[in-house]
């Protein structure tokens, strides 16, 4: 290596060193007394990488924003938020390994994530056994929190979402027959498919076909031919954004002309890129609409867009809300003890987040509203919302309005 090259490199190192402290100068007057260490489990690689990216971005934003406001306040002292991101590879076993590593090796105060139920259910077991508060932003399968006092979530549950979609099918399309196509090997689609069937049958909709496949399958023509032969009014398919385009396009190719409905796992913008025009006009239920009109929602969406150049999806919104829930809990508890954080989380009432107003029930599940989104011209557009009976209380009426 020539001398000039070495000099050049040294200069670069010095320059970077000089710029580094400048960019964080804003935080210097905060005088942090300690750290709040938050473990984040995100599926950065594997089947649903977009989910991981959204998680990481929203987590980074939630931490930076809090630190710019001098971090979490406990007893008049400032605590800096530090996030440690672990990759769960969209696999159950890797999610368990990530949770264990964060709790045992890194001694985190709390964990946010993992997102998909197939990862969150086993990781929740680890968090509960090792008595560490965990908030899964996106998991909607009941098993994630059942009998696990240490595990919370920011998303509503499938036993709530299933009826929302079934009611919508009946009210909007006057559906009398329905079919379901789902992945039997994945916790989320399997649970939701069953919740939908129960709700549909309770509503008097006849479920004429209940077809399954296995994770990784790409050819659904056999099951879809079965379904089409029964001529259902609606086809419900609670699959992830990387599978929906396959199902929709094959169904149309085989001549299905009825409605196709989905669930919150559809809500990643990649769905539109992969599906093209085939998904135009379709509906799904989810946690949040990008054109939601609350102040909290708009502020979040604006900041996120200016930071990352794209509109946040539901995963990002829920991850951000999970962080705010955690901050609220720590500040309410005025403590960094894991047990105190847990108790404070359980006691949060009428918290207003990006995804609407929520309270926690005794299971650690939030009580909140769902929105119905229509895919229009390559965008997710707010269409309607559905709330649990009597929620939110009239005094806290600030939820989504059509944008």
């Amino acid at each position: 290596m020539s001398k000039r090259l070495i000099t050049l490199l040294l200069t670069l190192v010095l320059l970077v060193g000089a710029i580094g402290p400048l960019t964080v100068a804003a935080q210097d007057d905060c005088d942090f007394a300690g750290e709040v260490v938050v473990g984040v489990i995100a599926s950065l690689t594997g089947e649903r990488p977009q989910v991981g990216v959204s998680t990481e971005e929203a987590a980074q934003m939630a931490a930076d924003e809090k630190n710019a406001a001098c971090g979490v306040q406990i007893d008049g002292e400032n605590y800096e938020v530090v996030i440690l991101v672990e990759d769960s590879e969209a696999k159950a076993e890797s999610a368990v390994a990530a949770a264990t590593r964060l709790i045992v090796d890194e001694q985190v105060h709390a964990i946010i994530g993992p997102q998909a139920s197939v990862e969150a259910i086993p990781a929740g077991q680890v968090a509960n056994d090792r008595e560490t508060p965990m908030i899964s932003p996106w998991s909607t399968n009941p098993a994630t929190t059942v009998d696990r006092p240490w595990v919370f979530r920011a998303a509503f549950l499938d036993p709530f979402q299933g009826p929302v979609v079934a009611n919508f099918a009946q009210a909007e399309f006057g559906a009398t027959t329905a079919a379901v196509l789902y992945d039997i090997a994945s916790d989320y689609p399997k649970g939701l498919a069953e919740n939908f069937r129960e709700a549909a049958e309770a509503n008097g909709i006849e479920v004429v076909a209940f077809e399954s496949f296995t994770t990784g399958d790409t050819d659904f023509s056999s099951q879809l031919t079965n379904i089409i032969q029964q001529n259902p009014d609606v086809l419900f398919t609670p699959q992830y954004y990387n599978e929906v385009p396959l199902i929709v396009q094959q169904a149309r190719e085989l001549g299905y002309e009825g409605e196709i409905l989905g669930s919150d796992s559809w809500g990643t913008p990649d769905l539109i890129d992969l599906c093209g025009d085939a998904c135009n006009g379709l509906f799904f239920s989810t946690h949040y609409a990008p054109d939601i009109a609350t102040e909290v929602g708009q502020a979040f969406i604006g900041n996120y867009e200016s930071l990352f150049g794209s509109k946040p999806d539901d995963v990002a919104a829920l991850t951000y809300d999970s962080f705010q829930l955690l901050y609220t809990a720590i500040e309410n508890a005025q403590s960094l003890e894991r047990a105190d954080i847990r108790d404070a989380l359980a006691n949060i009432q009428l918290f207003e987040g990006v995804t609407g107003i929520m309270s926690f029930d005794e299971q650690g599940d939030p009580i909140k509203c769902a929105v119905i989104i229509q895919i229009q011209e390559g965008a997710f557009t707010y269409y309607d919302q559905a709330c649990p009976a009597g929620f939110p209380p009239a005094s806290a009426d600030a939820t989504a309005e059509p944008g």
Partner: protein
Amino acid sequence: MTYFVQQFLNALQLGSLYALIALGYTMVYGVLLLINFAHGDIFMIGAFLGVTGSMVLGLPFVPTLLLSMTITGLMGVAIERIAYKPIRHASRLSVVITALGVGLLLENGMLALTGADPRSYPSDFITTTTYEKWGINISNVKIIIIVLAFVLFIGLYLIVQRTKWGMAMRAISYDKFAVPLMGVSQDQIISLTFLMGASLAAAGGILWGVAFPVLNPYMGMRVGWKAFIAAVVGGIGDIRGAMLGGLLLGFIEIMVPAYGKSIGISSTWRDPIAFALLLLILVIRPTGLFGVARRQKV
């Protein structure tokens, strides 16, 4: 009846795709006695080159197909030269491990290059039209896939059976030590085999991407294994066998969910039943449907 015809067409499409990929396994095995476990990942590379051709260069279907088949074919030759040729006389086990390694390299190389986000072809790559007659729906995509698979199969069969190159391939497969003595270049024939095998995989990859428009760097693994099994069932080394094995696998995979319900078998049993049936065939005919027992030279 219309239901059966519809499922028959579904099976023909899936089976044709498996068959196209199985042809590559069988050719390489036929000539080199090498199971090229990287073949599934070559198929993935072909599909991704198709995405590049159509998205970046904006090419229509046929030029994209030809371009991807050419580049992938040359890659197949390069892989053979770099990875397999140096160990041509090493033990069988080293060769298998090398092939697995090449597969992982391709898979993770593509992951590093493009990221894990799934891709699809642009919507104007092939405009899907569905024709309906007597209650049977058949799309232009299905027709293209089935016809092209059979055209490629017949073309390959004619090359192997009727040309001098094909004769040389069969000769090498019969006795790789005697053939060079006849003045045939072993290296050239092996390169040609890899060229044809890899370009067939690329054709399979693009057609797969048209039928199932969500592509990711891992897609070759599962499909590759299934096509390999199809080739073994057909009698690895035999071209007709690969075609038949692929179609057979496609038919079982479609017909189990199609008719299993009426006898109380859920569609989840598709893979277990498919592979149990294939195992059964191998129990009855250990060398596969078209396979001939090789005598071990002592």
